[in-house]
């Protein structure tokens, strides 16, 4: 018994814990004893005061303005860095204007913890390159049912090709009849590149 006591180490003190009637439930677990508290007038009044304080606090919140946002009738106030649905970008100015930023390096696919992204790269046609690099993404699929919106793909991308916009209400009643595929929640490159965004 003493050995065990030493092991648990926390049962000394008032001796209420280590009375030897029960084996200790685990190493380092402090046993709680339910001894009746004193029930005096002071104790009662203090309890009542605490209840009053609680009532006062909730009462304060009752008269405060409501914080509910009437989405979707009201725009949801999102922060700039909100991580919503992805979008593949193009160069909008400079020597590569109009080209896709994505160079098919698969770094986003490599870092994605949920295994969302599939990239199949292909060599650029030197006459008519799709991206400024050697290669471009021939296939760029995202299985949005798996995405956890962690934003790691955005951080990993060397050319800032994939970015996250503010669209967030992606649920739907059906998986079918998407514009480019049979499954609505698998976004293909066509769905992602130059995607229109609303928020």
């Amino acid at each position, binding site marked *: 018994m003493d050995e065990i006591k030493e092991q648990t180490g926390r049962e000394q003190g008032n001796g209420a814990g280590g009375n030897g009637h029960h084996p200790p439930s685990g190493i380092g677990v402090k046993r709680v004893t*339910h001894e*009746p508290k004193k*029930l005096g007038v002071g104790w*009662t009044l203090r309890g009542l005061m605490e*209840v009053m304080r*609680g*009532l006062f*606090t*909730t*009462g304060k*919140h*009752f008269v*405060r*303005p*409501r*914080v*509910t946002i009437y989405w979707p009738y009201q725009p949801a106030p999102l922060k700039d860095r909100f991580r919503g649905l992805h979008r593949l970008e193009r160069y909008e100015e400079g020597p590569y204007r109009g080209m896709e930023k994505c160079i098919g390096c698969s770094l986003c696919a490599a870092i994605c913890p949920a295994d969302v992204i599939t990239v199949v790269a292909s060599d650029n046609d030197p006459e008519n390159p799709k991206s400024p690099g050697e290669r471009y993404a021939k296939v760029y699929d995202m299985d949005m049912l798996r995405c956890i919106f962690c934003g790691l793909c955005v951080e990993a991308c060397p050319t800032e090709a994939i970015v996250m916009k503010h669209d967030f209400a992606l649920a739907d009643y059906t998986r079918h009849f998407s514009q480019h595929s049979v499954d609505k929640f698998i976004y293909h490159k066509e769905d992602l590149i130059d995607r229109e965004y609303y928020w």
Partner: protein
Amino acid sequence: MTLDLTSLYQTGRPYINMLVILAAIMGVAPMLVWIERKYLAYYQQRVGPLYVGKFGILQSFADGIKLLTKEELIPKNADRLTYLVAPAISMTAAFIGFAVIPITEAFYITDVNVAVLLWLAMSSLGAYGVILAGWSSGSKYPFLGCLRSCSQMISYELSLGTSILVPVLFAGTLSFKGIALWWKESPLVAQGNWIYLIPLVIGFFVFLVSGFAETNRIPFDLPEAENELVAGYHTEYASMKFAMFFLGEYVAISAIAAIAVTAFLGAFNSPFIGFAFAKQFSLEAVWGIWGRYLGQLFWFLVKWFALFWFFIWIRATLPRFRFDQLQRFGWYGLLPVSLVNLIIAALIVYSQASAGMAK
């Protein structure tokens, strides 16, 4: 033989009142659910139900329709008869409480001379609904819930019964109408004898707390503690049978609030009854006897709603008790307090009576 309209009305009045009060409760209970949800939301700075009807006012009717159209499920292990009867017991017992509550001087179903006893008996019967429901479901969580509710109701009924004896002792009657009428002539109002207030205030506190426990309201809602017992005793209930429990619960809350108003908050009398100006401005001065009834109805509803609001406020504020705390609070806390309170009340009655006799 001529038809005696007056006596016919006298005979028929309880039945008419019964129908009116029953319809009123049936109509008001869904509104109470709505009010509770709305106010709970306000206490958390939300807006609550919003879309069904104006301000979501029809929300509980929508919920009712949803429950009505749900599948009736009876678990395979259930004791069929008991399982089916339990919600009815629960609801009926809750409704019967209203039979003895005088809403105004003339508007009540019946005035029996053992009204307090009848109501206490009925509220104990309500416990049977819960216990039978939990037992007959043939499942573990409801069973645990019903065991909890069983011990909880037994513990708190004592202080509930003891605390309501204070106004009974003062008024010298067990009828709620008698208690309600006593308020007007009570030494508290008629002579401004404040000493009567002490046991009444303590009794009100004890009654309210026991009332929370009796109706399984939030600091004492262990029979249906969601995070431990799924939904407690009505876990296995679906559809309309669940709705009956739900309705019965709210009717029981209304009944407790109405009885607290009658016994401790001056019943249907105006709170300004002791002041001289109240006579001048009362509706009675304008419209005679009907004005008086109207005023009484108004004050009863105001007090009753204030108390119901307080129930919601408490629900928005306090967390749930642990079970041993609950039992300790009931047996070590409320019961001795209410017993001592009863003795104080008896001493007051005795001393005032002997003082009156000495004069």
